[in-house]
C-alpha cells in the first residue's frame, strides 16, 4: 500500500470514528414512548422531603409525571432542570410532577436541592417498596399517568421535559380525558 493510499484510508476511518462519536454523544431525544396497553398505576403514600405526605390517588383527575430518581444518578441530575422548567410551565394547569427519590434521606435530598433548585414535591421511597411496585429496572424512569389513574407512557433515561413535544403531549393527555 502506498503512503498516499494509506493516508486516504486513515482519513476515511477517522471520519467513521467522528461520525460514530457524534451519534453516541447526541442529546437525549424528546421521545415519550406509550406503553402497549394502559394499566392502573399502583397507588402509594410517601412522605416528602418537605415533611408533607403524598398519596398518588389524591391527584386523580390530573396528569401525573411520576419520576424515579436518586441524587448520585448522572442522567437523573441531567434532566432535573428541564423537569423543574416544565413544572413551572404546567403548575396549576392539571399536570402534577412527583419526583420519587429512591433510598436516600432528607439531608441528602436537601443538599441536592441546594445545587438543583426544585419546587415540585419529592416523595421519599426510603425502603424501595414503591419502585418495586412499578416495573422500574434502571434510574431514571418516568411514568406518565392519565387523569383516570392509568399509566400511559414510560420513559427510561433522561429527557428534556420542557421540550415542546413532551409538554404538548402532556397537555393533550389532559384534554383527551
Amino acid at each position, binding site marked *: 500500500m502506498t503512503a498516499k493510499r*494509506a493516508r486516504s484510508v486513515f482519513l476515511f476511518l477517522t471520519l467513521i470514528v467522528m461520525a460514530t462519536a457524534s451519534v453516541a454523544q447526541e442529546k437525549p431525544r424528546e421521545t415519550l414512548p406509550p406503553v402497549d396497553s394502559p394499566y392502573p398505576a399502583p397507588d402509594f403514600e410517601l412522605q416528602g422531603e418537605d415533611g408533607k405526605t403524598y398519596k398518588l390517588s389524591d391527584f386523580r383527575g390530573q396528569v401525573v409525571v411520576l419520576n424515579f430518581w436518586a441524587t448520585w444518578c448522572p442522567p437523573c441530575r441531567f434532566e432535573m432542570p428541564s423537569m423543574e422548567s416544565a413544572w413551572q410551565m404546567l403548575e396549576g394547569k392539571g399536570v402534577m410532577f412527583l419526583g420519587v427519590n429512591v433510598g436516600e434521606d432528607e439531608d441528602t435530598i436537601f443538599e441536592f436541592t441546594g445545587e438543583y433548585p426544585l419546587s415540585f414535591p419529592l416523595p421519599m421511597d426510603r425502603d424501595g417498596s414503591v419502585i418495586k411496585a412499578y416495573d422500574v429496572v434502571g434510574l431514571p424512569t418516568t411514568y406518565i399517568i392519565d387523569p383516570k389513574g392509568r399509566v400511559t407512557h414510560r420513559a427510561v433515561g433522561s429527557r428534556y421535559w420542557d421540550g415542546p413535544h413532551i409538554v404538548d403531549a402532556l397537555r393533550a393527555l389532559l384534554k383527551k380525558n
Partner: protein
Amino acid sequence: MGSRFVLSLIGALLLTESAAGGTAAVATTGIDEQAKLPYWQLANKYMSLRLVQRLPDQSRGFFQARAFSKEHAERIAQSCVFQTVFKNLSNQSDPSPLEYNMREWVVYSKGRERGMKTREDWATEWQEAQVAQPSRIAFEWAMMPTRQAYEPGDYNWGMSMFNLKPDTPFDVKVVWQQHGKTHNAMIKGIRCAPDIHPDPEEYQ
C-alpha cells in the same frame, strides 16, 4: 505510515457482527471526556453501548459514602467496574425496540470464559453478609440493569462488573435484540482500570 498500521487500525475499529442483515456495529475506543478515563464503545445507527473505566478508588469512595464497610467496598473496587451507558438510538420515524440480557454476554480473559456478575448475584452476597438495607438499595440502583427493554430514545447509565482483577485485559461478547433479530458483537482489548490512587481533583 505503513500498511501494517492501517490494517491494525482497521482491526481495532471494525469488528464482526454475526447477525445477518443488521447494520454492523462498530467498536471504538478513546478517552471519555467527562470521566477522563478510557472507554470502549460499540455503536451503529440504532444503538450504542459505552463502557467507561472506573478506578477502584472511585468505587471505594462511592460505596463507602453509602455506608458499605471498607471490606465490602474493597470487594466491589476489586471487581473491574465500568460505567456503562446503553442507548436505543432508533427514532420515531424508524422505531425499533431494543432488549438485552447481560446473562447472555460472555467475558473472555486469559483463555477463560465467564459471565458477568449481575446485581442479582451481588444482592445474594449482600443479603448473606447482612449489609444494611439503605446500602443494598443504593447498590442495586447504581448497577446497570441485568435485563432491560428500551423503546426509541430510552437509555440507562449504571455500573457493570466484570469480576476481574484491576488492570486485567479482556474481551466481551455483547448480545442484544433489535429489529426482531439477535445481534452478537465482540469488543476486544478492554482493560480493567488499574488500582492507582490519583489526585481526587483530577477524576470526577
